[in-house]
């Protein structure tokens, strides 16, 4: 009678019992565990291996950690693993096991007990996720801090020189060392110097806005073509002075709902850079809407980049160098583009042929509701523009 009871207890105990060989072959299993894996005893004993009733990667983990531990200390406690049924339902378990060794000391059999821990596991996953989130936030903060340091140093460096020269001219004029007629020709030079400084400060402002004001600018869909047209208007003077042709090849139907000023910032910096490194020919902007992203390509007929430079460029570590007309830059544009791309989960690709030109593509992820082709959006038979 007592034997019957103990038999019953073993089979239907509120936990799983399992014995297996070091190669994973199952030799004993109780009804409770059989229920979790939705199998009959006959299908399992001597037939199935541990890896067939556990989640992917478990047997790898056993090979790397569990068997060495069982061999060295004879037991393992509180291993968290998932038992998986024939119809792919997972039961999260805690697994305790002890090794039965033969005289030579090698493992003959492993006896294990498994407790289902569904609720506790959920809680653990929550904690794990919270920990991961906290770590990601800390990492993000550290990264922003680093970018801020770089920007502050660029800023100090790049605003000082023009302000210094403007200041000198004003002083000379104030001291009467430059007469009104002499000082006049310097005005244009000073305005140019200050223009560059103002653009730099504007860029910084738009970056700090997106960084510190998390109140998102209402993301009203805008036309990519119109953004590019605005950019061209801003950079018209630069292109004209180098006799370059700016081509806006974007279909007017391509719309995107995103932070317009960021997208404009990115395009403006790419076009500005293209103009800077192009002697003749021009700069073309095009855009393509894909199923999960929109790509904007700025290509030029400029001096191109060597493979080394290209690598640095795409990784955001290329520092500024003078353009074909000795145009100066701060190197800030690329840093900020990379910052924005990180925020938008976007990425940058570039192709370049020295002497022939460069083509830079920015890929911004979006859904069919945030970027689309307005003409075809009304025609549901064809959703995306190719």
């Amino acid at each position, binding site marked *: 009678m007592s034997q019957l009871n103990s038999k019953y207890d073993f089979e239907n105990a509120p936990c799983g019992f399992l014995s297996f060989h*070091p*190669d994973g072959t199952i030799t004993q299993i109780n009804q409770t565990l059989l229920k979790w894996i939705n199998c009959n005893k006959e299908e399992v004993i001597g037939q199935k291996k541990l890896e067939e009733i556990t*989640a*992917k*990667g*478990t*047997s*790898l*983990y056993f*090979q*790397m*950690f569990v*068997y*060495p*531990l069982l*061999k*060295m*200390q004879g*037991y*393992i*406690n509180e*291993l*968290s*693993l998932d038992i998986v049924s024939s119809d792919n339902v997972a039961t999260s378990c805690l697994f305790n096991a002890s090794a039965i060794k033969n005289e*030579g*000391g*090698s*493992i003959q059999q492993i006896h294990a007990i498994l407790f289902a821990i569904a609720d506790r596991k959920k809680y*653990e996953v929550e904690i*794990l996720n919270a920990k991961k989130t906290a770590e990601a936030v800390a990492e993000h903060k550290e990264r922003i801090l680093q970018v801020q340091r770089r920007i502050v140093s660029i800023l100090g460096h790049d605003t000082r020189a023009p302000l210094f020269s403007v200041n000198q001219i004003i002083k000379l004029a104030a001291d009467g060392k430059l007469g009104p007629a002499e000082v006049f020709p310097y005005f244009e030079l000073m305005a140019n110097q200050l223009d560059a400084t103002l653009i730099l400060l504007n860029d910084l402002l738009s970056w700090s806005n997106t960084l510190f004001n998390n109140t998102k600018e209402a993301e009203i869909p805008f036309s990519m073509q119109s953004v590019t047209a605005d950019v061209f208007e801003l950079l018209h003077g630069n292109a004209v002075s180098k006799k370059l042709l700016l081509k806006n090849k974007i279909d007017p139907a391509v719309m995107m709902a995103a932070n317009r000023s960021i997208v404009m910032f990115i395009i403006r910096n790419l076009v500005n850079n293209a103009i800077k490194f192009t002697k003749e020919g021009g700069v073309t902007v095009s855009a393509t809407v894909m199923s999960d992203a929109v790509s904007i390509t700025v290509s030029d007929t400029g001096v191109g980049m060597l493979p080394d430079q290209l690598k640095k460029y795409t990784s955001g570590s290329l520092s500024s160098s003078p353009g074909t007309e000795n145009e100066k830059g701060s190197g800030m544009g690329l840093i900020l583009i990379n910052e924005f791309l990180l925020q938008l989960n976007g990425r940058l690709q570039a192709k370049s042929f020295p002497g022939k030109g460069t083509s830079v593509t920015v890929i911004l992820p979006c859904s069919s509701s945030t970027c689309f082709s307005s003409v075809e959006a009304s025609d549901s038979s064809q959703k995306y523009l190719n």
Partner: protein
Amino acid sequence: MKVAKRNNVTIRGTGKETIIFAHGFGCSQNTWREVAAAFEKDYRVILFDYVGAGQSDLQAYDSKKYSTLDGYAQDILDICYEFGIKQAILVGHSVSSMIAAIAALKEPSCFKKLVFVSPSPYYFNDADYSGGLNKRDIDGLFEMMDSNYLGWSSMIAPLIMGNADRPELSEALANSFCATDPTIAREFAKVTFYSDTRSYLPLLEVESLTLQCAEDMLAPLQTGAYIKEYTPYNSLAHLNATGHCPHLSAPEETINAIMSYLKRTPIRQDPSLCRN
């Protein structure tokens, strides 16, 4: 003696020749206890823990240095320099086989023979090559590692780490044999699984032996055969042992295989190999 402490180097035995045992991913020099003991009579036996594993100095761990197998190979070379070791026998388990190969490429004069136990130059399947694993296995492994910090707790870590001379204390801590800082373990796993050392094999000048187990999902039969085909002066020995850890599951067979290989006259005796 900085390296000795950093890598928790243990030296036993009195032989003229030196044999170094390098542990694989996951545990520490403890895994070599049984096999290494058999060599103490005839060799100077050196055991150590890689930085980040076992009772090594965790302060010396540097994510960047140890983001490639080269960083780990440097640990072995540092030990060779520290103890003036030349022409040693280097036995590596699992990923340590390829770490040993890298060390021997960098400093051939330090090593006379290499023994690869359950080696794999690349763990994934790739065109004609069968590494045995696919991405889902590895994802599952990482998930299990994330939910099992076996024996690890930052509270008890100093106890485990600081008491090499008091094993009874370590043994009181369940699962502590393989206790590893989870962040380091994760990084070591990444280096292990995402390294591809196939291109190094043909360059190896030091002769080597592969011990190949049956039914080893981490180093299937094909990987041993691949190493044999592409590595100069490599011999391949098949063990009856199954699984990935023959030094634990079949220590006798492992010892015998290594010993009979060491007794064999060197395949290649080329004095030009000795740089110093």
